[in-house]
């Protein structure tokens, strides 16, 4: 399929965008990556996603698809001859969807709470997050069924949904000097994270931790400046 048939509106530091990039790579789909600049939304983005005005948006044969997990499922269904992303069993699919939703609904907001100003809020947030990491370790064992990925032998929907956030997870670990994924406490996740990040479809997608830390500082400075105006 020609690259121009598939366009991805996004920005590389966004884990939601990374999800789509990984899915496209997994299926060996050529695409044109249209990088949105931070702070200004392109005409194309506003036209393609008038409701949420957010990235990622995938445009396939001029038709827009929005919301990262919806896009990933779309990719899986259209390019059905490539490696499968969602499990085939309905119950396994429901489990994958449940945990994928958990990433955005509960886990990532909790991760962001860790960067709170007050010590008390920080401690409470850390305790909550450590509990969640234990849940993830458990989920990995259950979903992966002893294999290398949440999807089993191959990377799948939940690997993509959660793994795309490893960049920002590493940022939090480094900036706050804590360990969220630990060889001792979460051995399953530790092995998985390394396996995921070195996978062909993932290499080069998630920006390096140092770059993300640099970007985070810029975002923070801009947010501060905006709130002071």
């Amino acid at each position, binding site marked *: 399929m020609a690259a121009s048939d598939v366009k991805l509106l996004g920005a590389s530091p966004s884990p939601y965008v990374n999800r789509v990039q990984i899915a496209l790579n997994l299926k060996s789909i050529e695409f044109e990556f249209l990088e949105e600049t931070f702070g200004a939304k392109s005409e194309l983005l506003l036209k393609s996603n008038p409701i949420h005005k957010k990235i990622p948006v995938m445009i*396939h044969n001029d038709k827009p*698809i929005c919301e990262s997990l919806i896009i990933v499922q779309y990719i899986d269904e259209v390019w059905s001859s490539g490696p499968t992303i969602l499990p085939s069993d309905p119950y396994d699919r*429901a489990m994958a969807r449940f945990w994928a*939703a958990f990433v955005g609904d509960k886990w990532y907001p909790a991760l962001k709470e860790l960067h709170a100003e007050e010590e008390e809020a920080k401690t409470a947030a850390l305790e909550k997050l450590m509990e969640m990491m234990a849940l993830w370790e458990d989920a990995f064992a259950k979903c992966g069924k002893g294999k290398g990925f949440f999807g089993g032998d191959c990377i799948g929907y939940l690997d993509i949904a959660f793994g795309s956030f490893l960049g920002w997870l590493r940022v939090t670990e480094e900036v706050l000097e804590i360990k969220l994924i630990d060889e001792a406490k979460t051995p399953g996740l530790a092995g998985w994270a390394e396996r995921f990040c070195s996978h062909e479809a993932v290499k080069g997608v998630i920006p390096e931790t140092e770059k993300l830390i640099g970007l985070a500082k810029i975002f923070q400075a801009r947010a501060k400046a905006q709130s002071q105006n």
Partner: protein
Amino acid sequence: MSDEVILLSIWPSMFGMRVQIALEEKGIEYEYKEEDLANKSTLLLKMNPIHKKVPVLIHNGKPVCESSIAVQYIDEAWKDKFPLLPTDPYHRAQARFWADYIDKKIYNASRKIWETKGEDQEVGKKEFIDCLKVLEKALGDNPYFGGEEFGFVDVELVPFFSWFYTYETCGNFSIEAECPKLIAWAKRCMERESVSKSLPAPQKVYDFVLQLKKTMGLE
């Protein structure tokens, strides 16, 4: 092998109603178990330890949590009867988009209408109506969100219809005046047995909310 299907829910929950409608559409035999959220059953806590919420669908002992996920599960596990999602991937993506929109926007806006007063309530009312108008536009001239056929998005949205009387009375406004096409759609859905069986009477919901507000000290 006969399936054992249990639905844990509370009767006013629009999320529980979604799952019920899906089960009814597919003609699946199930056992409905009413939960008391002030005193959650051991079964609920065991089946949904993470969120401890209803609804939970239990199929042959295995739990499926989160209503939208449960509805999709029902559609896939009983795929030979009355499909709820379209077959075309683009239309499926659109259906999922609208289901996600309903989940993200409608519920939160609607809570402000009955939980708050004054300025906050006005904000909630405006948000709610704006969202309904977006959905009404998406519906267009189709009989259902699924097009000619009742489908996934219809299942996701129609339970809120049983709460419309509550929103209108608490917020002192008319949803029909703002979104007549949507009301027409809802009444069309109510003609289906799966829907009329699963939605409680609007007055009953209103009485429940009045009681809830008293308990929450909101009166």
